């Protein structure tokens, strides 16, 4: 299974049980597990939401929406049952953190779902795992069984008089299904085509009932907030960006891995100290700071704190926490092409700007990278991408367009170099590149 790493700068709050056998409920209980759920029962719905708001926790799935606020949007009264849905579809390239949570601390997800359920008055939660994570489904199923056996799930949980059911569920391969409304469609047994909003899931969601959808890391963080208190949790991070998060360091690094660092941790330090810097004495060329859909940053742009606001100010996004590091051997056109190939493959095809845009961009970038480019292609690529922005039913169109625009804007010279040296003028870096990893 995936190796665990460690660095002295880490603040192991969410990950403190990793590697300790806490997938077993006995170990989880020994390490303080399910105490937060009991505390939450005492607090009641309003108390839970207040604590969540105090924590400044923002969603770890990508957009960074404040979790407490999301929960407060669910109407108190509802004719239809309410649901909690955990998003464990984890498919944004560069992201591999939820996997560790499911593997090492599945009960924290269950406990988080219970607390979310208490907060909104729901009696049923779903944990959706991507189909590729089959070994995790087994771990999750076993953990759920254990929780039922202890009376933490089912009838009269913790002797509170309340009932709560949790069901684990598997997808079958589709990035788009990670989008919240497509996720609900998929859980209802359909193709993962998004729904038009409004209405938002908090009002009309799964099976037509009010639903909160949170990323697996978001949910797994919840019990820790009740363990140390919302205000304490907030203090670990920066203003309006509470706590810690799991950063997935990948690419051209000495020590790639998933590290838990405080929100606002400096990106440069993350790369050079936590990740051990660039192998082989090569130079840093670019950083994709939050998964493949986030605009690339230049080396001179990385002296920033990694929270949603600071990365936003730098013109990119903190996204899903996937920090992908590129050195000077990488051809940016090829990198842009590989990114687009992914989005073209994953577009559900419902809206024309996304379906046609990703297809044309992949075709153009393929031809361009192979040496068949023309000067006007460079502006065309940017123009095509810019015209996808904000014109689609779900954010996948933007997710494909945003990085593309940044690649052209920030690495225009590399695009121009491809006009002269056919096919790829950077191809000779390849050998050197592979020698360093």
């Amino acid at each position: 299974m995936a190796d665990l790493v460690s660095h002295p700068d880490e603040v192991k709050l969410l990950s403190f049980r990793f590697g300790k056998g806490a997938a077993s409920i006995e170990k989880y209980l020994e390490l303080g597990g399910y105490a937060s759920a009991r505390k939450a029962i005492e607090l009641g719905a309003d108390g839970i939401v207040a604590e969540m708001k105090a924590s400044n926790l923002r969603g770890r799935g990508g957009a960074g929406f404040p979790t407490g606020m999301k929960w407060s949007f669910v109407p108190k009264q509802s004719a239809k049952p309410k649901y909690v849905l955990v998003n464990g579809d984890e498919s944004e390239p560069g992201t591999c953190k939820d996997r560790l949570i499911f593997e090492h601390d599945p009960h924290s997800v269950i406990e988080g779902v219970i607390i979310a359920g208490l907060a909104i008055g729901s009696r049923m939660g779903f944990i959706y795992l991507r189909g590729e994570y089959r070994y995790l489904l087994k771990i999750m199923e076993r953990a759920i069984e254990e929780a039922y056996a202890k009376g933490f799930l089912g009838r009269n949980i913790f002797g509170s008089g309340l009932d709560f059911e949790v069901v684990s569920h598997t997808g079958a391969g589709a990035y788009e299904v990670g989008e919240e409304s497509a996720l609900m469609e998929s859980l209802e047994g359909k193709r993962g085509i998004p729904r038009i909003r409004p209405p938002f899931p908090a009002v009309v969601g799964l099976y037509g009932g009010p639903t909160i959808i949170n990323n697996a890391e978001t949910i797994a963080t919840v019990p820790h907030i009740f363990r140390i208190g919302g205000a304490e949790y907030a203090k670990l991070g920066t203003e309006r960006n509470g706590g810690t998060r799991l950063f997935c360091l990948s690419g051209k690094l000495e020590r790639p891995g998933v590290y838990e660092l405080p929100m606002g941790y400096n990106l440069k330090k993350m790369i050079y100290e936590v990740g051990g810097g660039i192998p082989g004495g090569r130079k840093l060329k670019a950083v994709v700071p939050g998964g493949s859909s986030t605009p690339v940053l230049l080396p001179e742009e990385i002296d920033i704190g990694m929270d949603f606001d600071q990365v936003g100010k730098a013109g990119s996004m903190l996204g899903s926490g996937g920090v992908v590091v590129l050195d000077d051997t990488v051809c940016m056109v090829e990198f842009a092409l590989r990114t687009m190939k992914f989005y073209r493959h994953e577009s559900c095809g419902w809206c024309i700007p996304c379906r046609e845009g990703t297809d044309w961009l992949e075709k153009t970038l393929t031809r361009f990278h192979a040496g068949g480019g023309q000067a006007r292609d460079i502006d065309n690529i940017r123009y095509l991408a810019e015209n996808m922005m904000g014109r689609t039913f779900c954010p996948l169109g933007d997710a494909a367009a945003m990085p593309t625009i940044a690649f052209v804007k920030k690495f225009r010279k590399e695009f121009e170099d491809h006009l002269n040296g056919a096919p790829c003028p950077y191809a000779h870096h390849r050998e050197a590149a592979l020698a360093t990893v």
Partner: protein
Amino acid sequence: MSGDSSESKTIFSPALAARFDRLVGLYPVRRSALIPMLLYAQDEIGCISDEAVAEIARRIQITELDVRNVISYYSLLHTEPHGKFHVQVCTNISCMLRGGNELFEHCKRRLGVGNKETTPDKLFSLEEVECIGACSWAPAVQVNYDFHENLTPESMDRVLDDYRARS
């Protein structure tokens, strides 16, 4: 409710049929069980055969066309059998930066097949896949559901040899 679906003839093992009986009752609507059922059916019989489509449609109480529509959307679901060991090489960004493309080429040569092809002995099939959630341990490969990470062409050969020896 048709509790009869398990009693009427099933093409699945008794254990899986029992699991299906339980699954359809687990959710507020039967149809929610569809995608897991398709995946588990495929795991047991190697692909989603016409018979599997028919039985699952009957169990969920939807049309076969509805079932096929769903199958065609999800990349893990397939109606033709793969090799006994389905080798899925990630070439997405994090893996690409650490030799994912070269690993994929190596697998092609080593197995003597192209993308989405199966060896004549039906032992191995090969597929280039998108990010499998192993970016920090790149380059990564999944064989059926098992992850293999931090691979080199040499360690990849050992992985393939191990599977061959197991067959």
